[in-house]
């Protein structure tokens, strides 16, 4: 026993030395795993917009020219009739008010523990988006591309695909992770495409209003999203919502990624005060009887020592010192009680410990970014949608604005992730990206385009 104990303790420093490289190694991949789906969503929306924007709608060029010729530049005119700034602002404010009311209603339902209501609402909304909007987009594509698909197959395939994707979006535990993520991206693409059908000034006003709303709702103490988040943390539950969660980089670290998500509902309600008592209780039972203390928390799949030190490492990089000290005490206790049945609850203890801390980082709302219980990054589907709306609207003008806005949005996302790593609490993902995106769109459209045009016509560049 002693040699095993001695063998494990020297293992600790090397594993903690490896801890820094592990975090740094996986950082780039973490970011890639969240940037890829955002980029895919934006790409699909741009493709759909390019294919389907009907030539009968007034192109921004002619509108700008007519507006410029008539009113002399400035911000007046806009697109077709009925699309002026006043209408746009009124529509945007109405939408923000509606979203605020809906979020407060969501918070109220969550407070009253009506989880079936919330899940039913989620199911209904995702199914209707996939069926109605998806069917509509499919019909538009078939008409535009003149694909000779017959009505019978279409009627067979559409409800089928909609049901399967809705199921995949709602219960991530029953489908492959790739399909779940693809279903979420599909819902975002369809909703974003629908939003791009709005008139131009309304779209821009809506984007800016939503960015301001997101900032207020997540950071202000009275904001609906913050209220919802605090409720979720207090109860150690997850809000049922459409949230994209990046796959954890190291499957060993994300060991029970989805088991955690499910068992949190039925697991032990813990707060930070009880962690120390839980640890001592487990130690007591270990030294006492040989019974497996069934703590009712999620089980560990793998039972290697490496996995235990892996969890310790993960805690050590992000948790206060208390956790790593007690966890290293666990490592020494482990060989001392050789019977297998006690090793299971001991290996659970670091997880219990981490959970109250971890859930402070959990962010489950639809318009924020945060860290999940396995350390993977979570991004709400609303963010996907509004990023894609911005890029889609830029695509309706020209591809130059698309590139500029895409780069601006990804830069904004990177900045938000940096702030997330720094502050380790839920942050709104919309404001920075939308602000950069709008600024770059305006700059590109006014300054860069004339520059490029002049260079091209004078055969200087491009």
């Amino acid at each position, binding site marked *: 026993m002693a040699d095993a104990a001695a063998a494990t303790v020297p293992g600790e420093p090397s594993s903690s030395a490896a801890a820094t490289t592990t975090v740094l190694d996986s950082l780039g991949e973490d970011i890639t795993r969240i940037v890829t789906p955002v980029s895919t969503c934006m790409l699909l929306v741009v493709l759909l917009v390019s294919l389907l924007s009907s030539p009968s709608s007034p192109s921004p060029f002619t509108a700008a020219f007519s507006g410029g010729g008539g009113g002399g530049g400035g911000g007046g005119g806009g697109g077709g009739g009925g699309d002026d700034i006043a209408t746009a602002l009124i529509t945007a404010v109405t939408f923000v008010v509606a979203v605020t009311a809906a979020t407060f209603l969501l918070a109220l339902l969550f407070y009253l523990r009506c989880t079936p209501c919330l899940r039913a609402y989620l199911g209904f909304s995702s199914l209707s988006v996939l069926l109605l909007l998806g069917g*509509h987009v499919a019909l538009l594509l*078939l008409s535009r591309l003149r694909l000779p698909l017959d009505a019978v197959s279409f009627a067979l395939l559409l409800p089928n695909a909609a049901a399967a994707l809705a199921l995949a979006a709602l219960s991530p535990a029953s489908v492959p992770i790739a399909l779940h993520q693809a279903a979420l991206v599909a819902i975002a693409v369809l909703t974003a495409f629908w939003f791009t059908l709005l008139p131009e000034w309304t779209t821009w006003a809506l984007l800016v209003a939503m960015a301001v709303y997101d900032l207020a709702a997540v950071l202000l103490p009275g904001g609906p999203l913050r209220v919802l988040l605090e409720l979720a943390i207090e109860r150690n539950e997850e809000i049922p919502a459409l949230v994209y969660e990046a796959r954890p980089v190291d499957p060993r670290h994300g060991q029970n*990624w989805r088991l955690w998500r499910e068992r949190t509902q039925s697991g032990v309600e813990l707060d930070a005060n009880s962690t120390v008592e839980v640890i001592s209780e487990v130690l007591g039972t270990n030294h006492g009887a040989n019974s497996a203390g069934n703590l009712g928390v999620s089980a560990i799949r793998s039972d290697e*020592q490496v996995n235990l030190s892996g969890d310790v490492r993960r805690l050590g990089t992000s948790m206060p010192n208390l956790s790593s000290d007690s966890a290293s005490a666990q490592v020494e206790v482990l060989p001392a009680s050789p019977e297998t049945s006690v090793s299971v609850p001991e290996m659970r203890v670091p997880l219990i410990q981490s959970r109250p801390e971890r859930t402070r980082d959990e962010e489950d709302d639809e318009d924020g970014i945060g860290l999940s219980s396995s350390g993977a990054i979570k991004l709400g589907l609303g963010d996907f949608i509004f990023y894609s709306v911005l890029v889609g609207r830029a695509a309706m003008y020209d591809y130059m604005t698309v590139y500029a806005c895409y780069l601006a949005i990804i830069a904004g996302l990177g900045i938000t992730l940096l702030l997330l790593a720094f502050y380790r609490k839920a942050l709104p993902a919309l404001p920075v990206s939308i602000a950069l995106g709008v600024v770059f769109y305006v700059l590109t459209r006014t300054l860069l385009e004339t520059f490029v045009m002049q260079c091209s016509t004078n055969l200087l560049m491009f």
Partner: protein
Amino acid sequence: MEARVAGVPEDEESGLLPRPSAAGRRPSAAAARRAPPQPVWATVDGPLGLPLEEAEGHARRFFLWGFACLPFLWAINCCYFWPVLRSPATSSSSAAFSQIRPYVVRSAIGFTIFSVVLLTWATTFIIGGERLFGPGWNDLVMYNVADKLGISGFMG
């Protein structure tokens, strides 16, 4: 001292072990003495997917619901339990999979039949065209149906 491995039922208290950690082990305890046994994952997601004891109920549910005119559930079943489908019938892990395997195999058969039927019909429709169907073809093509119903314009 040999490395002790959690979850391996080797003493009388094995009945007290919580089930989730006992399942997923290789049935052969002899192999466990050599090295920690690799847990056996039934799903394509590996450690992030379903644990073994839930997999059977899940496979059965998807198989039965597929009969409600939802053959894509069969496809999801096959993709999700791909390791079960691909594991040879005599390997040691197939003992654990033996409950799941019939449902997955039947789901695969069902989805194959459905896709063959659908593809045959769609290909006949596309290639045959008006020569084969006569004027009825124009009534069945989707874009004409959409135009007739007036839903191919922009919504809202």
